């Protein structure tokens, strides 16, 4: 049976490098007659015979039960047998913590076999983070002082592999003493054990310096290798050690290296014709640390480095490993141009090697060399570019990173072209990395907008599904700013869409541009010299939007953008108006709330409001590049940080924006827009595009975010302030959906009340939304100015807020038949001698109150009480008669272009409001 398993399991036909690796043979050789080994074999056989995982679990469970029983009976005779079984079970991934104490007991017993298996179990079953480990400290200490060298060796090995910082401190003196042991095998183990100790507790380094220096004179290779390693680690953690070794040992080390390099054939250490490559490499590494930043030490090692670099055998891996290390050393030590040339040449040879391993390390090393000699690396640019196209993912990744470092002002165009061309044929899983790098190169180096737009179009058409959102956001901002390229861009996009309509982010940009510049597409406006005129009809353009609307792969962002684009086209393409409204109406029943709502709203705009539609859907104002990039880098644009402390609330709300602002707000129907305070570019474009799409899931994700931040960011979206309470800590979805119509209402109605002179206009606008939430019509009635002021003020005015610089007074009035609603006229007076500009008043109220802010009469406050600004605030207290009004306010303005923020709480409202 054994032989059968053998044959079955040993069927790998791969390259056998060790000679005679596979020599046909019988069963297992039983080297020892140890009974426990055979029992262990029985278990392994039983486990291997299992055909299913369940069966295996059964066997393991049975074995574990037996071992537990033995543990609880404290069975000495079977302890090591059980431990060996446990280790195997552990290797299969089953829990074995119950065996930990047995390891400790086994270590504490007197015999070598028990100790050997005990230490093995300790290293396998435990790691430095388990507290049980502390219990073994004493046993280890005794074993370190044992007379038997093999027992000392076991203890050192365990200590070196798993000791914790506490153990390292406790046992460091013992290890230090063993560094001077008579047996070289103990010395080498002690040296590596010290390596671990020094890594764990770096302040112990000083104690090891002199014994480590002594190890550098070893003749025994093992001890010498370990000693060199210890010195290397000491140099890394302690400047004192570095200085000491640099002064005392550099010459000695150079001599040791010389001896090894020139040593005659030594069969014991020979690897492919090189004597002890491991020692070579460690010596070179230590010399690197010593030579770095020290001209004298570097001088001292020049000759031997030149010898290693020029004489080492290069047709075997061992020799190349030494050369690789040597090149790295030459690159880090102080400048010697001759050596550097030698090193760069070696890298060139490596790079053209057929062995993938060698090419990989060459690329790796060139990354480091670029800091030293960028020109020399540039010479290999063509070869490196070839490596980007390699079939090996590891090499591609390395090469791509290297190319990214190689790009500069003079070569970015050809390099980008190469990479973009390669994008077409690259593997799917490499496209993400590749597009990422191309986009950063293009963004970083592009000088002309047309080049930028062209390159991005290529990337989006090839790998639009792999680019990050910021990339296409940035592209839209650039397009919006390049007014002379609008026509060219929209036409190129249209063409790209015909061939690559499956690339999501390309589709989004296409949809946006057609919505904005659709007529340029049809009429070939703004032709560039290099362009061929194309014939696109209005219905072709609508086709694009319809396709992206209906394609099942389009996500909600794309669909919403398409809806908006359709609305925009409806006024520009009168001939397609009917068709567009048909497409929009199809989404009235969409399961996605956002789409459904928009489709209803847009439909009413098309059907009922011909007169204002063209004004509503005008082209977007040019997006501000500086603002956008500022947002991207995380800082906020107009009002960065304020004197009273940084806050995310100083965004300009609609009031301070240019005349275009109401338009944006109009389009901005974002209902359940949940801003994510930390995200950057995304929300910016989204609120400009009016795609307030952040789904409800992300709403709950922002619950931890400061709600006041959320409030004010919501303010941004409309001129009116939605009545979000500052104390509310949970934006439940139901609440949001209740408030949604109200907000969209406020964002539509308030600019209208200022813009549209006739009341009928405003009224009809409100009609529009009547269908959405009838209950609101009652609350919104008061917006009609007819009612305001019909009721005299029966409440005393108050000074709601006063600081050294600013006074805010509130006067109150009520309306007939609506005791819940109070109209507040806020009057702001500037008490200082400077003019305030960009004045913004913001307010927040508790949950039971609803709040509406009208635009202020002005956003500047003249100095020294020479006039005032007023702002109408309407509050509806749903618990009228039970609770008083309360309000938190925040006033932001600029004095001499410096931002000032004032905030406070108003609790002195007259009772009964």
């Amino acid at each position, binding site marked *: 049976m054994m032989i059968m398993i053998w044959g079955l399991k040993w069927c790998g036909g791969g390259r056998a490098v060790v000679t005679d*690796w596979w020599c046909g043979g019988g069963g297992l050789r039983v080297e020892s007659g140890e009974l426990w080994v055979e029992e262990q074999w029985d278990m392994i056989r039983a486990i291997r015979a299992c055909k299913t995982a369940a069966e295996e679990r059964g066997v393991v469970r049975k074995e574990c039960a037996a071992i537990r029983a033995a543990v609880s009976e404290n069975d000495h005779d079977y302890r090591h047998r059980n431990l060996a079984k446990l280790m195997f079970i552990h290797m299969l991934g089953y829990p074995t913590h119950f065996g930990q104490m047995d390891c400790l007991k086994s270590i504490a017993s007197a015999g070598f076999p028990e100790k050997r298996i005990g230490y093995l179990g300790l290293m396998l079953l435990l*790691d430095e983070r388990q507290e049980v480990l502390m219990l073994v400290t004493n046993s280890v200490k005794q074993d370190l002082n044992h007379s038997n060298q093999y027992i000392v060796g076991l203890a050192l090995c365990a200590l070196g592999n798993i000791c914790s910082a506490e153990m390292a401190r406790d046992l460091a003196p013992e290890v230090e003493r063993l560094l001077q042991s008579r047996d070289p095998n103990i010395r080498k183990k002690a040296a*590596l054990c010290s390596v671990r100790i020094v890594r764990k507790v770096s302040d112990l380094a000083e104690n090891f310096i002199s014994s480590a220096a002594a190890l550098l004179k070893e003749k025994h290779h093992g001890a010498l290798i370990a000693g060199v390693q210890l010195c290397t680690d000491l140099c890394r953690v302690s400047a004192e050690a570095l200085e000491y070794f640099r002064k005392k040992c550099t010459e000695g080390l150079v001599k040791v290296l010389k001896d090894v390099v020139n040593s005659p054939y030594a069969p014991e250490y020979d690897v492919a014709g090189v004597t002890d490559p491991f020692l070579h490499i460690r010596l070179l590494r230590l010399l690197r640390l010593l030579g770095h930043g020290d001209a004298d030490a570097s001088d001292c090692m020049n000759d031997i480095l030149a010898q290693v670099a020029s004489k080492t055998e290069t047709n075997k891996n061992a020799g190349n490993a030494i050369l690789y290390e040597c090149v790295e050393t030459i690159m880090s030590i102080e400048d010697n141009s001759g050596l550097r040339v030698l090193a760069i040449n070696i890298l060139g040879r490596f790079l053209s090697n057929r062995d993938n391993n060698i090419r990989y390390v060459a690329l790796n090393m060139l990354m480091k060399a670029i800091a030293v000699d960028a020109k020399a690396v540039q010479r290999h640019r063509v070869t490196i570019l070839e490596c980007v196209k390699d079939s090996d993912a590891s090499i591609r990744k390395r090469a791509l990173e290297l190319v990214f470092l190689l790009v500069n002002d003079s070569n970015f165009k050809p390099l980008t072209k190469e990479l973009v061309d390669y994008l077409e044929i690259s593997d799917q899983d490499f496209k993400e990395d590749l597009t990422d790098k191309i986009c950063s190169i293009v963004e970083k180096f592009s000088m002309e907008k047309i080049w930028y737009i062209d390159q991005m179009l290529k990337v989006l058409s090839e790998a639009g599904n792999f680019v990050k959102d910021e990339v296409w956001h940035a592209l839209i901002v650039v397009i919006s700013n390049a007014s002379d390229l609008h026509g060219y861009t929209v036409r190129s996009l249209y063409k790209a869409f015909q061939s690559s309509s499956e690339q999501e982010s390309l589709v989004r940009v296409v949809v946006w541009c057609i919505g904005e510049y659709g007529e340029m597409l049809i009429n070939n406006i703004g032709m560039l010299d290099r362009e061929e005129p194309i014939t696109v009809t209005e219905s072709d353009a609508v086709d694009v939007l319809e396709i992206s609307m209906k394609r099942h792969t389009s996500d909600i962002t794309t669909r919403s953008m398409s809806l908006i684009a359709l609305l925009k086209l409806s006024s520009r393409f009168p001939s397609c108006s009917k068709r567009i409204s048909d497409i929009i109406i199809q989404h009235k029943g969409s399961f996605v709330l956002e789409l459904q709502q928009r489709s209803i709203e847009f439909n009413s705009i098309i059907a009922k409001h011909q007169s204002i539609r063209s004004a509503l859907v005008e082209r977007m104002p040019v997006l501000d590049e500086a603002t956008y990039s500022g947002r991207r880098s995380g800082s906020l644009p107009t009002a960065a940080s304020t004197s009273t402390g940084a806050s995310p609330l100083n965004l300009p709300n609609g009031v301070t924006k240019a005349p275009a602002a109401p338009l944006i707000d109009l389009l901005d129907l974002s209902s359940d827009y949940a801003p994510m305070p930390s995200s950057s570019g995304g929300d910016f474009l989204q609120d400009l595009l009016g795609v307030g799409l952040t789904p409800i899931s992300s709403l709950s994700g922002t619950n931890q975010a400061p709600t006041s931040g959320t409030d004010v960011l919501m303010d941004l979206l409309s001129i009116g302030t939605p009545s979000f309470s500052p104390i509310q800590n949970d934006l439940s979805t139901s609440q949001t959906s209740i408030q949604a119509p109200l907000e969209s209402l406020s964002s539509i109605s308030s600019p209208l009340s200022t813009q549209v002179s006739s009341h009928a206009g405003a009224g009809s606008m409100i009609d529009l939304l009547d269908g959405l939430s009838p209950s609101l019509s009652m609350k919104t009635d008061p917006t009609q100015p007819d009612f305001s002021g019909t009721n005299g003020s029966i409440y005393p005015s108050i000074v709601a807020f006063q600081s050294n610089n600013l006074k805010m007074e509130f006067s109150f009035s009520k309306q007939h038949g609506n005791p819940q609603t109070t109209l507040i006229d806020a009057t702001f007076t500037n008490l200082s001698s400077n003019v305030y500009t960009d004045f913004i008043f913001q307010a927040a109220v508790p949950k039971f109150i609803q709040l509406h802010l009208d635009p202020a009469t002005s956003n500047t406050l003249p100095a020294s009480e020479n006039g005032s600004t007023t702002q109408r605030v309407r509050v509806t207290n749903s618990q009228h008669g039970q609770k008083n009004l309360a309000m938190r306010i925040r006033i932001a303005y600029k004095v001499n272009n410096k931002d000032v923020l004032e905030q406070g709480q108003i609790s002195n409202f007259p009772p009964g409001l």
Partner: protein
Amino acid sequence: MIQYVLLISRQGKVRLTKWYSPYSQKERTKIIRELSGVILTRGPKLCNFVEWKGYKVVYKRYASLYFCMCIDQDDNELEVLEIIHHFVEILDRYFGSVCELDLIFNFHKAYYILDELLIAGELQESSKKTIARLIAAQDSLVETAKEEAGSLSNIIAQATK
């Protein structure tokens, strides 16, 4: 520094694991699962290095076994390949043309050999002969102890007869 050593069979079974940095059991299982997915699917002609979560994994296939060592970013990959080969040659010498089954049934021996080769994730001995001698000496210590125990129990058995 070598962070860990893994021996994985072509079927994805773990034959030996040695961790020189602390990883919880959960992390270990995750690493083994993900890494074997990456390494076992790589083609034969590709380079022997995989970049892995800020580390590099150097692996080499010997018949049906993959020997993997995870190292720091700035370690010498080519040297680690040599260390792997060094380990394989020592195993081969010890078991007399080693095969996967040797490592399954005598997994503890494989660990003993690895412990003579590496400590604290660093190479300890570059001479195969020295390692073979040290292992043999310790094996014979175990033998002697067993024989003594055996003869002792024989004497007891004789006496109580």
